[in-house]
């Protein structure tokens, strides 16, 4: 093929138009593949966050910590579980039920016996499934 061959004006214009059309087709195809064929939903988070609440029942106790020594006869019991669930808190001498808030948090004050106290916190769902957690707390009237 001779590259030195001179093109007529008509040939030159046609070649330029052809290059332009081919480029347009290529870019159009690329746009279709990237934006139309593999398009992602725009309102993916319209229904709220993607995270869903855990389906299994659980209970996390923030307070008190295990093996805590206290000098006050009352202690705060707080933690987190599922929303609007019955939380039972028992010791050898005390029993109480609190309901968790819509965000799952719960908190109450529990009276302690002098000496060792085993605190059991249990949560129940509507079907009677339960989870429990235990904490050992020692109440001393005298400060050390």
């Amino acid at each position, binding site marked *: 093929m001779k590259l030195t061959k001179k093109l007529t004006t008509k040939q030159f214009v046609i070649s330029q138009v052809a290059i332009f059309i081919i480029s347009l087709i290529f870019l159009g195809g690329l746009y279709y593949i990237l934006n139309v064929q593999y398009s992602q939903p725009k309102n993916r988070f319209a229904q709220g966050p993607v995270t869903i609440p855990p389906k299994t029942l659980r209970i996390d106790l923030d307070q008190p910590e295990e093996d805590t020594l206290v000098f006050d006869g009352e202690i705060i019991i707080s933690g987190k579980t599922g929303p609007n669930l019955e939380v039972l808190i028992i010791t050898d001498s005390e029993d109480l039920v609190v309901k968790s808030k819509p965000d799952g948090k719960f908190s109450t004050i529990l009276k302690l016996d002098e000496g060792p106290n085993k605190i059991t916190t249990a949560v129940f769902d509507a079907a009677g499934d339960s989870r429990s957690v235990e904490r*050992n707390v020692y109440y001393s009237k005298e400060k*050390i």
Partner: protein
Amino acid sequence: MKYLLVLLLVTCYLLLPHPIRAADSTPSADIKSKLEELKKEIASKAAKLKQEVNKKLQNKAYVGLLKTKSDTSITLASNTGPKLISINQDTAFESKVKNRQKISLKGLSEEDYITALGDVDETQVLTAKKVILLPKAKPSTKTYLWGKIISEEAKLATLLGRDQKNTAVSIPKDVKVRVSDFIIATGRYNENDIFEAEFVYVIKQGGILKPKKSASPSASIKASPSLKPATKSTN
């Protein structure tokens, strides 16, 4: 001529040495103050964190049965596993057992029920400020039940649990329950296997008792007539 003069002036100006303003090698006062603020913030956060960690390590109590002892340490078997307690000359000894009022480390023996009060270190070893001999505790039998009351007469109710098992529950006198109520009860089993409730909570919104899935007749295993009992072949 006029243009030439202007051109000359411009050239002269360009040829004049211009002072180069290098960037300051020391931070400006503004950056310095910001750095100081940041330092203070970090220091206060670190102090808070240290305080929280110390709080978690302070005022701890290990309760359990004495397993081993030496002049400087005691090993306990607690509900949550073995615990190591460090003893020093400042450790005080006290007894809550009537017939053993005065005690010391020497007076403690294996299987004594004790508590050690003090602070723990990062390795969870408790440095005892006080060791108390406690009366031996009976294992707690207190437990709880959840279920639906399916019958009730003279403060004796039958509770249908989640596992479809019936439990006889003695209801406290001051508590009113009705058939079909869903309750949470705490208490203990007596020698007749009746649950003596100490506390009863009626769940206002009720509950759901799912019937147990039973195997369909088609799913039951049928022995095929062609099957013969396996016998060990002997040659």
